[in-house]
């Protein structure tokens, strides 16, 4: 490992401040249900609606005030942090995973590198016909399935008997065009507009909202990893892996992908910040989330009902601001660390050499 990176990495007080804040958010979010909060979330205190923070001796004081529905702001803040852990963080992880896989595969195999058995063609056509409920969907899907089955049997049988015309024909999968096309299509619409369009209507469950956030977030990661993969796949260590006869899946998974994903260390915190901002915007607009779901954005949105309630801005606004700034600081530091060319090259060649040695043995 590069010695300069971690030193610079560790030296910044801003960085440690950011890490400490994120640790606090994570800690509060994880321990939320067990913290000794005076009031549970999403429970109105009808005797104290929209009251400012109170620090009286009462055991049931609203330390951070209440919102216009009488919900305790402190409880909403704590469980809002939990919402980040259960929604934004998994959404970022899944979007990164999906984007990295799709972008990495697209960059590695391109449009002609991956071929599928010919039987997959009619099978996919049958699935599409059936899903889109095109005319005569049932009979058409059955015919296509039969064709798919016949092709499979034919190819399987003649592959055993020896090479024949048509027996070895495969279907090249234009993976690069597919991934780029879908990513471009999703990116053509502003992210907020797309999410609002998808989340409008009845409130979504957490898993549904998670799926929506992943859907809009993966294209950025995919494009980044694809671009990196185009550089990585022509690196000597990858070519050496090809030359050594390693299976292509192994080369992709063990050698190329880890290096193509290096920029994600810096981009993932920014993706997380983006998704937190997006989720908060949705909650602020009252879209997507149930009123029982605690969210900093939702808490901010209640200000519209009580414009003079400053405590509805200070708590969730500060929490949101500090979290976004902390994530940016972490991303900045990680970016500095991983943009070191020496680090990249050294690590890459070290790792590849180790794998190659293992293979040659």
């Amino acid at each position: 490992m590069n010695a300069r990176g971690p030193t610079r990495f560790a030296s910044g007080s801003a960085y440690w401040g950011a890490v400490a804040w994120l640790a606090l958010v994570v800690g509060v979010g994880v321990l939320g249900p067990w913290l000794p909060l005076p009031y549970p979330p999403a429970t109105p205190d009808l005797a104290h609606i929209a009251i400012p923070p109170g620090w009286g001796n009462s055991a049931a004081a609203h330390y951070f005030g209440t919102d216009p529905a009488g919900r305790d702001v402190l409880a909403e803040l704590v469980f809002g942090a939990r919402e980040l852990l259960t929604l934004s963080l998994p959404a970022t992880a899944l979007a990164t995973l999906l984007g990295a896989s799709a972008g990495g595969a697209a960059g590695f195999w391109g449009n002609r590198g991956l071929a599928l058995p010919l039987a997959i063609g009619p099978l996919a056509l049958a699935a599409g016909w059936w899903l889109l409920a095109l005319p005569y969907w049932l009979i058409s899907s059955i015919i296509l399935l039969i064709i798919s089955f016949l092709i499979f049997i034919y190819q399987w049988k003649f592959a055993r008997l020896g090479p024949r015309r048509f027996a070895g024909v495969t279907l090249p999968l234009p993976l690069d065009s597919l991934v780029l096309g879908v990513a471009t299509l999703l990116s053509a619409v502003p992210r907020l507009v797309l999410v609002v369009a998808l989340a409008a209507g009845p409130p979504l469950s957490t898993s549904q909202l998670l799926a929506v956030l992943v859907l809009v977030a993966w294209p950025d990661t995919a494009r980044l990893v694809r671009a990196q993969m185009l550089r990585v796949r022509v690196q000597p260590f990858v070519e050496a892996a090809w030359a050594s006869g390693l299976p292509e899946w192994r080369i992709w998974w063990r050698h190329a992908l880890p290096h193509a994903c290096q920029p994600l260390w810096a981009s993932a915190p920014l993706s997380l910040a983006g998704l937190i901002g997006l989720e908060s915007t949705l909650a602020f607009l009252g879209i997507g989330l149930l009123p029982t779901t605690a969210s900093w954005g939702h808490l901010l949105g209640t200000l519209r009902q009580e414009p003079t309630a400053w405590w509805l801005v200070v708590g969730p606004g500060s929490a949101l601001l500090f979290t976004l700034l902390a994530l940016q600081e972490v991303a900045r530091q990680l970016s500095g660390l991983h943009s070191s060319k020496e680090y990249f090259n050294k690590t890459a060649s070290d790792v590849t050499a180790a794998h190659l040695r293992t293979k040659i043995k």
Partner: protein
Amino acid sequence: MAQVNSRAVDVINLMHYSLLQTDFATGTMAPTLAAALPSVQFVGDSLTHLDYHLRDATWDNGRPVLATDVAFTLKLMHCPELPNEGERTHFSFIRELLLDPADPRHFTLVCRGQAPEYRLDSGDFPILPENPLDPTHSLRQFSLATLQDWPRSTAPAPAVAALVQRYQQADPGHHPERLAGCGPYQLAAWEGNHSLTLQRKKKWWGDRLPTAPLVLQARPKQLQFLILPDDAAATLALRRHELDLYPQVSARDFQRLQASATAHRELAFYSGPSYDIVIAGFNTRRPAFQDKLTRQALSCLFDAKSLLAGTQLGQGSRTVGLLPPTSPFYNDSLPLPAYAPARAVALLRQAGWQQIGGTWKRAAQQLAFSVRYRADETTFETVALQFRAAAAAVGIPVALRPTEASTLTEALRQGDFDVCVRKLKGNPFAFNFLPILHSQSVGEGNFTGFGTPASDRLLEAIAAVGQPGRKRLLLKQFQMMLQKEAPLAPLFVLPYRLAADRHLVQVYPSGLRPGYSAATLTWAATPSPDH
């Protein structure tokens, strides 16, 4: 005819006149298209004849408004496949309209029953012109009773079906200009989700009247209704003078405005009791809500007293049923519904529910359900949150489903809900609960699906009873039945609050919708005093 939402009535009443309309100065019904209140004649012991004479009113094309237009409107109301379920049930007591061959402006309504409210209630629907909608007079071959009694399972007669198709194709709900009324205003502009502009007609029959009563006055040359997304936007618009009048102000905004010295200088504030009641309705078609003990138990989980204090800041009042405490027919011998979780648990056990592993179960049923309410109503959300928290405390999981207004109405009509929180509109003129609680209104206005032979008989008797003493007795029985059967839990009666520019006079604030008299609004040189 049917309104997509209740606020559409505010505009419709300015474009289409009824026989009788609310006089906001006196809080009673006054003759509008009718020359006078109808004379009443009881026939036998089960029929009422209401004798109407129409004013010398005309449509925009100069044709007179005649009794045949009234007959056509009533028949159109009962045509199948038109979305008039509520009106159909409400006016089902009018069985026939007898025309006077000698006087085309004179007719008699034959009503089933002998309720004194029929006199005022019978004229409260907008009259539509027959000729533009039915130029061949195809509906005249059917009597009103024939259309009312037409079996639901039978296809409508070809002439009726053709008329319905023409009406639906005209789409007057979205193109009001295709259905001119005899009111003083016409739609000049409609910007979706933003504003509606009504223009005073230059030539209107009411201008010929030497002294127009209040209900026939139309002073503003133009009225613009702004559609504002939430209370905060409306309050801001009012303070920026983009709005001159703001009805149904939320309790907090009203209090905040009143506390502001600047707003107090510029605005006049009006408030008082209304006839709108916030209720929680149970879908009695759901197996879990079919028995009254479960419904009673869940009713005990609404903290109406705290909800009234919290959401309405103490204004408004609690009630035992669907009548406000100010009504002479209010049953004050009944106790107000109390927040009693312990009693809820006892009633659930009595209903056969058992708490097993933290959940309530009865045979194969589990007591877990959702609450639907209008997404843009803070009061309803607070009610739902309070109920959810109270239910969770006794081990009942409740999910909240805030829903957009028109989607919610459709869902309620189709019975796609477990519990709903909504507002029921009332008035002091009529006590007709058939549209909302009679078994024949299930799938139409009776969203709860409630209805037993005994409750149906009681509701029919209330709608038709003539003697005030007997009516009082029946209404008290009705309130008692409502508490016992608990198809819905009445929570509280809402107050009305209205803020208007101080220079705006002849506002006539009222607890009746829309809460003010739009057609009489006038600008005064000097600001109005405090109210």
